[in-house]
């Protein structure tokens, strides 16, 4: 790791955050489409032909008429547009952390999807708690691990054993960001599980 410290830092940073490519490409396509439409209207206007949707002067009059239009309609359009704008501003500024975790490995930057960690932990937790593998559900977020166990009706669940198993597994994994484990046992069991 030491030899390529800055390269590895760059790779980890970029792999842990979204590039926002989908949003950027979608916006670029929509802007191009709007541009193409305005350009076709201009060409039709120059040729003296009727517009596709509206001629340039009709567009100008629609914009000017916003004050005279029913306020409710203008208000609703304004709120909808404002919300879309706010969403875009959020996308531009928010970190966009991906649901992944870094392993502390020297040789290579090792990135694991939270889903993979969750299924590995679920297996261990189910075995320690003494329930079927399908009855332990694990959610992994950026700081927390929550194990949801559905007990088999009539059989008590060893919650401490499940927590210890998850803690041990997490310790063994050696994630760069330490996760806080939590085990919850459902109040209602399931028959024949």
């Amino acid at each position, binding site marked *: 790791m030491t030899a390529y410290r*800055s*390269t590895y830092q*760059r*790779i980890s940073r970029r*792999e842990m955050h979204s*590039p*926002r*490519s989908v*949003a*950027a*490409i979608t*916006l*670029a*396509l929509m802007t*191009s489409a709007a*541009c*193409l439409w*305005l*350009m076709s209207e*201009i*060409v039709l*206007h*120059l040729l*003296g032909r009727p517009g596709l949707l509206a001629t340039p002067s009709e567009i100008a*009059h629609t*914009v*000017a008429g*916003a*004050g005279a239009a029913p*306020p409710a309609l*203008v*208000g609703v*359009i*304004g*709120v909808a*547009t*404002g*919300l879309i*704008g706010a*969403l*875009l*501003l959020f*996308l*531009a500024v928010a970190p966009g952390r991906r649901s992944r975790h870094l392993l502390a*490995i020297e*040789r*290579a*930057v*090792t*990135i*694991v*999807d939270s*889903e*993979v960690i969750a*299924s*590995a932990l679920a297996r261990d937790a189910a075995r320690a708690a003494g329930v079927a*593998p399908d009855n332990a559900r694990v959610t992994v977020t950026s700081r927390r691990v929550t194990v949801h166990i559905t007990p088999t009706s009539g059989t008590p669940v060893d919650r401490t054993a499940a927590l210890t198993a998850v803690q041990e597994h997490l310790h*063994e*994994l*050696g994630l760069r960001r330490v996760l806080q484990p939590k085990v919850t046992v459902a109040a209602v069991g399931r028959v024949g599980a």
Partner: protein
Amino acid sequence: MNSTNRVLNRLFILVVGLVVFSVGAALLLVAIAGPVRDTWAHSVAICVSGVTRWLRATPLPNQPMPISGSWLWLVALAAGGALIILLALFIIRQGHGHTRRLITVGGDAGMVLVDSRVAEHAIQDALSGRPELIASHVSTYQVKHQSVLKVAITCRRGISPREVSRIVTEVLVAFDTLLGGQLPALVKISAGIRARATQTARLH
């Protein structure tokens, strides 16, 4: 890993977001505030009359083509075309960063070029025999003027990522020995769609 310009992506989204948000806010103000409505009508009227005056003052010279109007429209068309070209370049620029050159060893006697496929095939072959992994894909990227190996792994449900990482590190170290040097590497472990359909592996 790829060379997408993320700052540019976010800047573009920010600019479009600001424009869309301001339009929305302006429309809302027009709808709810009487004074704003008057100002809006007044300023739009001034703009429209100004633009109309410019368009009248700049007629196209007489020519055989059947077009009439102001040459400012042609300027607008050119600007629109330029914007579309810029946006197309922006879209095409996303992704990329692959390299086909793994390493170059140069000397007075000559140069040795090692193709990326040497690493890709060697590592992928070594990983394909492992039952714990469903699929693996190796590619080479250029990061900071340096070839970096990317090993993407799809593993079975329930397998410890530590175990997967140990297997891949073993293979990488073996390849280091083969190559006679160490290359930076990224290992990406994911579950993938196929993993969800595959039964839980029983390893004890």
